[in-house]
């Protein structure tokens, strides 16, 4: 049997048998070299309670070349691209060692969530947020965990009736959006909550604002 396949199969089986680590690796389809990993957000962090999914691509020369991983779940973190989920982590690059496994790499991602490295950022905007205002950063990261990673509070919030104006304003800030942008599209006659939802989904922040035309946003709002 192909050595790479044998190793990957063994890794998947080992991970299944291990009930203590909370790391999951599953097949997406019959391709054994394109997998999905997931783990719970670490306790005592803004990611607590969330469930984070990672796209795993195993290259031809694995494990002698590093595995390719990126977050499928949107994560608000200095070392993770808020748009693409790309991860900046040394073991995924030149510090990779063939003795590392999919599981140990996923554990490293989990621990990356505990200890961000804002000086080696993947997402400069998020890193800036982290270094300038830790509290505000934590709020946004918690909010993203609720919205995207199924964190606590997400479900009860859905059950609530119309959100108050004050709460909505907070929502704008912690969604990492600009009030002026939300106001602009609300003025066109769309419900505020819908505007926030769409702008968040389109990642209407920072440099992305220039890339997204108003028409494109309105198109999404009309859907």
């Amino acid at each position, binding site marked *: 049997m192909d050595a790479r396949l044998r190793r990957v199969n063994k890794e998947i089986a080992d991970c299944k048998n291990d009930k203590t680590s909370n790391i999951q690796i599953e097949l997406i389809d019959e391709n054994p070299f394109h997998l999905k990993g997931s783990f719970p957000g670490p306790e005592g962090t803004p990611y607590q309670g969330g469930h984070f999914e990672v796209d795993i691509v195993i290259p031809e020369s694995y494990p002698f070349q590093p595995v390719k991983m990126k977050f499928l779940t949107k994560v608000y973190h200095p070392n993770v691209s808020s748009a693409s989920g790309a991860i900046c982590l040394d073991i995924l690059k030149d510090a990779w060692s063939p003795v*590392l496994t999919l599981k140990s790499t996923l554990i490293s991602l989990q621990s990356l969530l505990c200890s961000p490295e804002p000086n080696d950022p993947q997402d400069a905007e998020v890193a800036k947020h982290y270094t300038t205002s830790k509290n505000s950063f934590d709020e946004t990261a918690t909010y993203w965990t609720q919205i995207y990673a199924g964190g606590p509070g997400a479900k009860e919030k859905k059950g609530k009736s119309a959100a108050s104006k004050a709460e909505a304003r907070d929502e704008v800030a912690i969604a990492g959006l600009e009030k002026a942008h939300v106001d602009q599209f609300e003025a066109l006659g769309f419900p505020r909550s819908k505007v926030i939802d769409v702008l968040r989904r389109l990642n209407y922040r920072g440099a992305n604002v220039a890339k997204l035309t108003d028409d494109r946003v309105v198109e999404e709002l009309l859907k």
Partner: protein
Amino acid sequence: MASDYEFSDSDGDYDDDEDMIDGTQDETGESEDDMDMDAFGDDFKVVPKGKRKSFEIEYESLSQSDVEKLMKKDVEDIVGILGVDESTANLLLRHMSWNTERLIEKYMDNPTKVLVAAGVTVEEPPSSPAPIRSHSIPNSATIGTSQSGRRPTRSSSKLLGSKSPSALKSSSTVSPTSTTRLSPRATDLPTPFVCPICFDDAPTLRPLSLTCSHPFCSGCWTAYISSKITDEAEHAIRCMAEGCALVATDTFIHDLLTASDVDPEEAKVNEETWARFQELLIRHFVASNPNLKYCPYPACTNTVSCPAAASKASLTSVVPIVSCGARGIPGAAQASGSGGNLGLPGKEHKFCFGCPIESDHRPVVCAAARLWLKKCRDDSETANWIKSNTKECSMCMSTIEKNGGCNHMTCKKCKHEFCWVCMGPWSEHGTAWYSCNRYDEKAGVEARDAQSRSRASLERYLHYYNRWANHEQSAKLSLDLYAKTEKKMEDMQITSELTWIEVQFMKKAVEEVDKCRMTLKWTYAMAYYLAKGNEKDLFEDNQRDLEKAVEDLSELLESPIEAENIPMLRQKVTDKTVYVQKRNEIVLEDTAAGFLEGRWKWNVAIDGFDDPEKTEF
């Protein structure tokens, strides 16, 4: 070989040259061809061969094995001085980028530090058990490992700055003679052995480790080392254990890649990988030595040694164009047509030793040549229209396509004759008033307001760029010209009494035109930056004379052949070729002399030269 231009440190003896060629390449057949050219090309000799001209630099072409000898000498020196074994000396030298003096100095100062940094020995652990974490990897208890190793400290060696005296003592007791442990019993292996990478536990498995005792199976080692060499072009290959900074020795790598317990196909791949590793080592050595440069042509493994151009300062007075001695690209189609007897050799591996330009940019110095190329890149948008291959006849407006190197255009429709470059009537170019090469500076001087000044500046640039691009275009079309010439040579043999040898004058002429267009091309870059004055006028006079001669010869080569004219044509082409060659040498020699004398003054700031006096141009 372009023997006239080939440097040889001998007295020009023919056999010496052949030896050099044979030592550096194995393209058979070509030297034979060259011999014919040398024997029968005497019509064209201007200067006796073997003598270096003022615009040529002294250099030496080295084969891969020549460079290996140089490396071996350095290694032997280090073995002798530091008393280490050959493998260790190699790793130390590579770590120090082959700076022997610095290595000796650092090693004398603190051997442990150097040995650890070079990956020869493991860092002495601070009285804790040996780091055999990797043993636990196959089990589930990996959390601690991966977290502590999330940002593995490759810089751990740096921590040694404050090492204890005991660490120093231990280093001197380290015997670097056995850097690899190939015996399975040599380490504290758990039995039976399970490879922590492929999870294989077959009893036939061959566990191997470096002196750090991190064992992995031979199959995994081979796959890992191959991937590092092939995918990453890495020559310093670290141990596979996480965070371990030990570097695999050449012996270790060689043993793996020449192992006999693999199938023939894999053995062949391994052999290629080993060759590639050797090449990486040589490339690293060459890149570390300012006197050496690796030939940039694809698949070529030769090196050129040129100490005369090793310093940046030297590049203001010489243009170090060198050749590795080889020709053509292995496997690629050569310039000659399908099985024709012209037998044109592949392109000579000419490149600049002083800058990344992979062709002959004489007469202009590196800094100015690169400045010009950058300008052309930046301004390519505005200048793009010029490059187009078609133009309209200024008389009848019909479209005319250029298809040869000659600038003398005749409109097929109205028979109007004009110059492709300046679009002026050709009649003026044939007289003493020929001045197609010279930009009329008056227009620039007269420009008063900013807008017309900027227009004048663009026009000025386009004047030079136009001519530059035209020679480049013509040189590109030289493949066509080669093919056409080959056809003509065949025709000549049929229609006349001339033998194959006797029609070689055509080939020589085509080669000369090609070479001179290269010179002409770069003279326009040079002239663009030359400050106004007598020196520039003289430069442009020489440029004009060469250009005129080249266009005349080009035209001769494109003229139709009639049997009764062949002897006359042969005489004319031969004479013109000699003349063109002479004009080319005048340009090159005078420019080279000017650089040595510091005669050339620029109109812009050029790296390494004095800033120009404020002048308008």
